[in-house]
C-alpha cells in the first residue's frame, strides 16, 4: 500500500510510495500500450481456450469448438505416410528379389523400413542389429543353419522353423540321444569330445575322441555330414566352425547331444504382409552375412 509519495532528490523521479526497510521504489511508469499488449495476450488465450482443447474436467475435458485433436492429427499423418509408401510396398510385394535389388531407391526404402520392422518384430529374440543370443542365432555372421541367400532367408521368415500349423515350415529333429536311451552317458561324453576336437576347441588326442568318432559315424553323419560340416537342407549346424548357438563349452555340447535342442521360430506369413516380410528379408540379408 502506497504511503508516502515523494520526489527522489537525485533523479527527480516520483516514488511509488512503497518502502521496504528504507528502500524506496521509483515510479517509472510502464507505457500503456504494454499493458494493452498484455490484455491482448489474455484475450488471445481466452479465444484459444474456446477453440482448442483446454479446460480439464474430472473424467473428460473441454474439447474446444474446432474439434481439434492431436491424436487424430497423428492418425491422419500416419495414414498419409502409409499412402505415400503404398507405391513402394506394391512394388516390393510384386517384384522378385533380383529386381528389387536392381532398384536402388526401392532397396533404400526396404532397408530403412526393415530396420524399424526388425526392431518391432525380431529384436526381442535376435537382439538389435541381429547379434542374437544363446539359442537365437546371430543373423549378422556368415554362418547359416538354413541358408543365407536372400531367398532362403525369405523362406525361413515366411514359414518359420518347427512352427506348428505351417505345412512348409523348416523341419528337422535331432534325437535326444541320452534321454531316449539311444546312447549311454559315457558314449555321449565321447561324442562331445570328438565334436569339440573337430573345430579345434578340444584336444584331438584323448582316448575318448576315437570312440566318439566311431559313434559319430554311426549316429550323426546322416545329418551333420562325414566331416561334420552340417547340412542346410536339414538345418544341421556346421560343427567345425567357431560359431556355437548353444555354447561351445563341453557341458553345453553334452547337453545338446543328450537332450537335443530343437529351437523354434514363428512363421510370419499371415502375421505380416508379404511386402513387410520381404523388407525384413532384405534387411537381414544386408546385416553383413547375406550370401
Amino acid at each position, binding site marked *: 500500500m502506497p504511503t508516502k*509519495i515523494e520526489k527522489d532528490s537525485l533523479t527527480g523521479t516520483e516514488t511509488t510510495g512503497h518502502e521496504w526497510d528504507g528502500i524506496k521504489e521509483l515510479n517509472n511508469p*510502464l507505457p500503456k500500450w504494454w499493458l494493452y499488449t498484455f490484455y491482448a495476450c489474455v484475450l488471445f488465450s481466452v479465444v484459444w481456450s474456446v477453440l482448442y482443447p483446454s479446460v480439464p474436467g474430472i473424467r473428460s475435458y473441454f474439447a474446444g469448438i474446432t474439434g481439434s485433436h492431436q491424436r487424430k492429427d497423428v492418425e491422419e499423418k500416419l495414414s498419409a505416410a502409409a499412402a505415400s509408401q503404398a507405391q513402394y510396398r506394391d512394388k516390393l510385394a510384386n517384384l522378385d528379389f533380383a529386381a528389387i535389388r536392381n532398384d536402388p531407391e526401392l532397396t533404400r526404402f526396404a532397408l530403412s523400413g526393415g530396420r524399424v520392422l526388425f526392431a518391432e518384430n525380431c529384436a526381442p529374440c535376435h537382439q538389435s542389429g541381429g547379434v542374437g543370443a544363446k539359442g537365437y542365432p546371430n543373423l549378422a555372421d*556368415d554362418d547359416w543353419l538354413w541358408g543365407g541367400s536372400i531367398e532362403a532367408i525369405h523362406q525361413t521368415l515366411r514359414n518359420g522353423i518347427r512352427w506348428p500349423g505351417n505345412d512348409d515350415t523348416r523341419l528337422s529333429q535331432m534325437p535326444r540321444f541320452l534321454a531316449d536311451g539311444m546312447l549311454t552317458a559315457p558314449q555321449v561324453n565321447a561324442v562331445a569330445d570328438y565334436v569339440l576336437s573337430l573345430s579345434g576347441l578340444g584336444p584331438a588326442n584323448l582316448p575318448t575322441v576315437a570312440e566318439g568318432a566311431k559313434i559319430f559315424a554311426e549316429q550323426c553323419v546322416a545329418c551333420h555330414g562325414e566331416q561334420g560340416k552340417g547340412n542346410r537342407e536339414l538345418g544341421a549346424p556346421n560343427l567345425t566352425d567357431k560359431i556355437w548357438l548353444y555354447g561351445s563349452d563341453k557341458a553345453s555340447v553334452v547337453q545338446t547331444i543328450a537332450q537335443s535342442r530343437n529351437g523354434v521360430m514363428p512363421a510370419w506369413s499371415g502375421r505380416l504382409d508379404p511386402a513387410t516380410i520381404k523388407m525384413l528379408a532384405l534387411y537381414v540379408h544386408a546385416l*553383413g552375412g547375406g550370401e
Partner: protein
Amino acid sequence: MADVNQIPSKSGLKPEAESHAEAAHSDAVLGMFAPSLYADHVKVYPRAVSGYFRNIKWGVLILCLALYYIGPWIRWDRGPNAPDQALLLDMEGRRGYFFWIEIWPQEIYYITGLLILGAVALFLATALFGRIWCGYTCPQTVWTDLFMLVERWIEGDRNARMKLDKQPLSLAKAWRKIAKHTVWLLIAAATGGAWIMYFQDAPTVTREMLTGQAGMGTYFFFGLFTGTTYLLAGWAREQVCTYMCPWPRFQAAMQDEHTLAVTYQGWRGETRGSHKAGQSWEGRGDCVDCRACVNVCPTGIDIRDGQQLECIGCGLCIDACDDIMAKVDRPLRLIDFVSMENLERRPKKQPQIVKLIRSRTVIYSVMLVVVAAVMAAALLLRSDVELNVLHDRAPLFVTLSDGSLRNGYTVKVLNKRRETVQYRLSLDGQPMAGLFLGGERDAGLQKELVLDVEPDSVGEFRLFVRMPREAIKGASMDVELVLRDAATGRKATSYDTKFNGPN
C-alpha cells in the same frame, strides 16, 4: 506546445497527478492517492533538420536500403543445376549461397562465425563511437527515418503535423492520413517481399506472389514482415528503442570515458536563456533556450538533461543547434560528439585527447582479427568432399565362422562438386583387413572399395571390415579410413575410427 515536448518516460505523471503527489506528501493521508503506474503514449513530432549529421544519416540510409532491396536480385552464375542468385539461403535445398561460397548444413558454423564477427565489430564500434549503430545503421532507425520522410512529404513538417492531428476529421485530413498509411504499407510490403527473396529465387518468387501461386509459408512470412515493418517503423518507433530493444541495456558495458557520445556542453550553454540581437553574451551561457534540439529529436528527449537511455546518438540535435549558433554568431557545436574525458578538459582549456588504443578496443580488435582469420582459413581449406563414419553400436563386432572378426560402419561421403565423382575407400595401415559393401559380400573382400557419389549430394554406404584375430590388438583399435579421388589418386580426406573386438 510545451506539453507535447515533455519527455515521455521521464515522468509519467500528468501535472495534476504531480500536485496530488505533493498533497499526499504533505498530508500523508494513507490510501488517498495511488500513483499511476502506466504512462500514456506521448507522440513525438520531430522537425526536419539539415546539416552534417543529417547528410551522413541520409547517405547511410540510402546505402542500407539499397543493399537490402537490391541484394536478392544480384545474379551469380554457378553453372547448370545450381541457383544463380548471389545471396540465397535455400532452406528446402539445404544450401546457403554467398557469391562464390556455398555452404551445407554441416557447415552452419560459418554463419556462427559471421554472427560473432558482426557482434564483435559492433562492440568495437560502440567502444569507439558510442551508439552509432543505433543512430545510423539499425534497421529500426533506418526504416523509421524512411517512414518519417514519407510522413513529412504528405502531412508537412512538425507544426503542420501537430495542427493536423488536433483538427477534427475532415476530407483534407482524411486523404492525407490515408495516403500516408498507404505509402507506409507499400514500403512495408516491399520490405516483407524482399525478405522472402533471400530464401527463394527472387524473380520466381516475385512472379509466384503476384500471380497467387506462392506457398502458404511464403505468404505468411511476407505478411509477418510486412506487418512488423509497418507497426515498428510507423507506430512504435522510439518505443522500440526505449522499451523493447535489449541492446541499449548492455551497450554501456562497452563504453568508457573515451567513448564519443552526443553531449550538451553545459559548461558553455548554461546559464541558458533567450537572447535578443545586440544583447551582450557576458555572464550567461550560449544556449538561447530555443528548443530546436528538442524539436528535431526523433525520440523526443531534451539532450540538455544529460545522457539518457532514450538517446540513440543520431546527432540531429547537433545539426539543429549548429544552425542556431550560426545565426546568433556563437561558436558551433554547443552540442557535440565528444568523450567524457574531453568534455572535462574543455572548460579547463586543456588539450583534447583522442585515445583509440584502450584495453577494450584492443581486446575487441584482437577478437575480430582472430575470428576473421579462423574463418578465412576455414574457407580457404574448405574441401569439396567430406567423409563421415559412424561405427555400428549394435553389434560392436561380429565373430565369423573362421574366428575372424567383422565390424560394420555407416559411411557418408559428401560430394560438394556439381558432377558425379568416383572415390576409393581403404583402411590404411591394416594389410590384413578386407573390406566389402553391404549387399556385396559375394564380390569378396577388397583392399579398396569404389564409391560413386552423385553430384551435390551425400552418398551413404554400409561398410564391413573383416580382420583375422591375429591382426587385432585390444578391445578397441584405432584405424584410419582414407578416401581418395579415383581420377587423380590423391588422398581427399580421411576419418579416424575404431575397430572393435572382444577383450
